[in-house]
């Protein structure tokens, strides 16, 4: 191999060949450059060529979903699809050949350019260099600096990287914080707020005896005195029942054992930062503890008429408390609390609609931090908000004069609003069969489609039934019928789909408690303590009544096999007696 290459190289390096090599080098170089550029462009945006990303094709396929029998459309899809895929294949082939061409071009270029370079090579003309040594010293010095600089430079670069990066990764568990609230199922199986988890007054625990005839107390499992007055309704979590009570002097939370009725603990809410030293004047008709408590399954929340708001652990240990200011409210604050995930939702309406007076507030359950607040263009109201999943999104539904407004619990953004609330708004909204039902006190019942945005007064009111309507109690509904009962005792049944009246019935009773649904049974508790059970059906049918013999203003709460009713003095449990319960799961 010694002589062949040498002679060969000698031949190739005949000086005469220089121009040839030069032109070859130029041609090959330009050729390669062009190919390389082409390939680069192909490489830079391949997406354009990917058939599966063609917006046109996607659009056509989308269109086909809406018009499945459009043959010409199908044909267009097929043609386009074929065209796109052929283009894709062509692109791949092009790139493949392009790469080989580039390789070839470069080989030729390298060979030619090398020959050229060899031909141009001339022997160096070294001159004796007297100060070579000094130069060497110079270079040595520079070298030291260069090396130090390299080291330092890299070191600094690494340092900047090191100190510009933060991390959240640590041995602490994070998942715990994620679910600091009960699941929807848990909430639904308990009675975590006024009128149940979704505020509809419907219980999932349908196997319970509600009445037992009038002249006995057979149905009463137990009956325990509540140490402090209050119009709020009981809430239930697990086998605990909670109520609040209050006077100008002292405001408290009480916890009862659901099985035995024993008062397990009572916790005064005192030394609340910002709480007025002297309790405000509030009328007897509402008192200090008209608002029902709420729980997210981890903490209890309670609010009083003096604006004190507090969170307790399920065992009564204080978590946080604050004062929202004494509400400007002729009857005293009575809107009940609501929760969403680990958030507390407070509807705090006051005044005559002066801007900024009425608010909707969301607090972080564990800390009490204010997460967001929305000022509401409404007057004081006494209705309670509900938080429900409607039209695929969680919504807070609020009633007050003059607006029905829905908010997003995540950020408080207003979702939609409907005008038309009048009078003193006390009945709370409910959601049934995908509709929102709102009572305009003693005037009408409205059904609203909750999938709108902005002011949907014109567009989303499905129906409105003008009739003698409640001024205190809230409606209740299954997915076919809606029931309302007025204070003087007029019970009306509407068709949920149409709003047409199905039947009405004069009851010889007065009502402050809102009606409830137990399976297909409608339960009413009268002001005088009469429990009335009738069929939630298209004809009125009384199924039974019993008498507690005590005044009742609060709405009942439910647990598996039990119903809890707060009378003016007592907490009453309707259901099998404690020892009977022991066997039950």
């Amino acid at each position, binding site marked *: 191999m010694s002589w062949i290459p040498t002679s060969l190289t000698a031949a190739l390096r005949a000086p005469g060949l220089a121009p040839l090599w030069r032109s070859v080098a130029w041609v090959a170089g330009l050729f390669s450059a062009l190919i390389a550029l082409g390939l680069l462009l192909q490489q830079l945006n391949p997406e354009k060529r990917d058939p599966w990303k063609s917006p046109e094709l996607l659009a056509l396929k989308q269109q086909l979903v809406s018009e499945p029998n459009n043959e010409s459309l199908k044909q267009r899809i097929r043609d386009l699809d074929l065209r796109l895929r052929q283009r894709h294949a062509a692109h791949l082939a092009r790139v493949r050949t392009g790469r080989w061409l580039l390789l070839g071009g470069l080989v030729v270029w390298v060979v030619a350019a090398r020959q050229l*370079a060899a031909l141009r090579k001339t022997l160096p003309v070294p001159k004796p260099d007297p100060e070579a040594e000094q130069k060497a010293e110079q270079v040595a010095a*520079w070298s030291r600096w260069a090396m130090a600089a*390299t*080291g330092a430079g890299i070191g600094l670069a690494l340092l900047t990287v*090191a100190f510009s990066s933060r991390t*959240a990764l640590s041995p602490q568990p994070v998942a715990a914080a994620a679910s600091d609230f009960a699941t929807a199922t848990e909430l639904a199986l308990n009675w975590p707020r006024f009128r149940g988890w979704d505020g509809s007054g419907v219980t999932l625990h349908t196997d319970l005896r509600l009445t037992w005839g009038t002249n006995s107390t057979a149905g009463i499992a137990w009956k325990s005195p509540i140490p402090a007055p209050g119009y709020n309704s009981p809430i239930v979590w697990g086998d605990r029942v909670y109520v609040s009570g209050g006077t100008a002097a002292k405001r408290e939370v009480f916890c009862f054992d659901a099985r035995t009725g024993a008062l397990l603990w009572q916790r005064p809410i005192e030394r609340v930062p910002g709480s007025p030293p002297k309790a405000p004047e509030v009328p007897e008709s509402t008192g200090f503890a008209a608002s029902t408590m709420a729980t997210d399954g981890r903490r209890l929340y309670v609010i009083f008429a003096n604006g004190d708001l507090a969170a307790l652990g399920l065992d009564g240990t204080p978590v946080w408390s604050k004062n929202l200011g004494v509400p400007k409210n002729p009857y005293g604050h009575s809107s009940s609390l609501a929760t969403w995930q680990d958030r507390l939702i407070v509807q705090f309406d006051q005044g005559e609609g002066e801007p900024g007076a009425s608010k909707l507030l969301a607090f972080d359950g564990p800390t009490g931090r204010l997460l967001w607040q929305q000022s509401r263009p409404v007057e004081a109201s006494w209705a309670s908000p509900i938080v429900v999943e409607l039209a695929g999104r969680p919504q807070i539904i609020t009633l007050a004069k003059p607006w029905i407004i829905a908010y997003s619990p995540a950020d408080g953004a207003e979702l939609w609003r409907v005008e038309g609330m009048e009078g003193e708004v006390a009945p709370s909204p409910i959601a049934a069969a995908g509709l929102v039902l709102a009572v305009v006190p003693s005037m009408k019942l409205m059904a609203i489609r909750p999938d709108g945005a902005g002011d949907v007064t014109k567009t989303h009111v499905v129906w409105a039934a003008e009739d003698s309507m409640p001024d205190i109690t809230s409606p209740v509904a299954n997915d076919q019928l809606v029931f309302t009962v007025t204070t003087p005792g007029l019970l009306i049944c509407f068709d949920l789909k149409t709003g047409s009246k199905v039947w009405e019935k004069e009851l010889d009773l007065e009502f402050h408690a809102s009606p409830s649904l137990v399976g297909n049974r409608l339960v009413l508790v009268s002001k005088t303590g009469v429990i009335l059970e009738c069929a939630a059906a298209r004809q009125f049918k009384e199924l039974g009544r019993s008498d507690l013999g005590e005044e009742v203003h609060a709405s009942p709460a439910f647990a598996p096999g039990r119903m809890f009713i707060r009378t003016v003095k007592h907490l009453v449990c309707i259901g099998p007696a404690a020892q009977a319960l022991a066997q039950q799961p």
Partner: protein
Amino acid sequence: MNLAGRIALAVVIGVLAWATGARAEQRFPPPEFESDYQMPAMTTPPPRALVWQYIDVGVLAVALGVAVWLVHRKRSRTGVLVLSVLSLIYFGFYRTGCICPIGAPQNVLFGLLNPNYAVPWPVVGLFVLPVVVALFAGRAFCAGVCPHGALQDLVLLKPVQVPLWLERGLSLVPFLFLGAGLAFAATGSIFLICKLDPFVPLFRRHGPTWSLLLGAAFLLVGTVVGRPFCRFICPYGALLRLAAMVTKWRVRVTPDLCTQCKLCEQSCPFGALRQPSSGTPDPRTLPVERRRLLALLLLWPALIAVGAWIGAHLTVPASRLHPTVRLAEFYLEHKKHPKQYPIQSPEALSLLRAEQTWPELQAAALQLRHRIGLSMKLFGGWAGLVVGAGLIGLAVRRSRTDYEPDSGACLACARCFESCPQELLRRGVPIPLPTAASAAQPQSVVANLPTAAQTTNR
């Protein structure tokens, strides 16, 4: 049917046997076809057969042998050139890279530290052979066997000399790169050296745009700067450099008498050729140099400590190169600032996995980060060590009587041989005649000869 083919068949059969083995009877029967339908088998084309890996090692060994012979015995630049072309074709364009000796150190270390990856013998061979050769005969691998080197060598057209001081300054980089590559490989984070390799994508004619462009850029720079990757980046080169420093048979411009004609001075495009320097130091500078050396020796441990300290602080960003840690961090970030990722997007699916396996993932990530922190400290220490050693190396004065390549930096490309008149005489190759371009040239040569003689007689 060739050997590979037969092995392929064996593998397929093996796989099928394994597939239709123990659990087969558990399988719910597919439909019984009334037509005489034969159910096709799933094809399993085998990977590149094992023999070929041994063959590669064999070829490597042979090529190394030839290279040594060409450089030390035959002393033929042309030969080396031809060999490098062949290597480029075989190791480069035919074998398209992985696993190559440059990446092999990572596999070796990874294999030694990772229980469920045992280094295959061929890989060990790829790693060891060039080093051994370098220990005895210099960087023959770089000269004509490494496809990366060959490629750059071929495109080197108009060498410009990189100033020596810059050369020395940058010569630190390969060592640091080697340290980083090993540090990451040891923890299984990433094979950095392979990830950043600029030429393998060219050999494959496939790869991410950025790396193809990187390769192109290196080649373009390489047309004027001799082998930029080999000199200023290549981590394996750093290893071989260390080995070649203590090589037994050094590459010399000529085995014969050096006439100090300086004709070879410019002939090395890689800045490896060193001028003669009298070992006798200048008495005026001597104390300064002594003090400098002393200071550096004392400074060395401090440098190492600083390096380790920096390394320790690199733990967090470095550990992000490990997919597991990265996922854990991504998950936590997502928990803090939730973001809606499109349905079935990789991000969404990764987050789902993190969600489902969080405690284990967290534990794994933390453990990994601990290990990575350790290796980063070591890397930092190594960096300090390298810088210190470099400075000290400069501080000690070497004496050279002749023009000769620095045995560590010399890539044994045999270029300088051609430029030495003595060598050409020895080989009976005609000395190139002066061209019109340099008329003054012959005298200069002649003029130098006596001075050379004097210097030697001194």
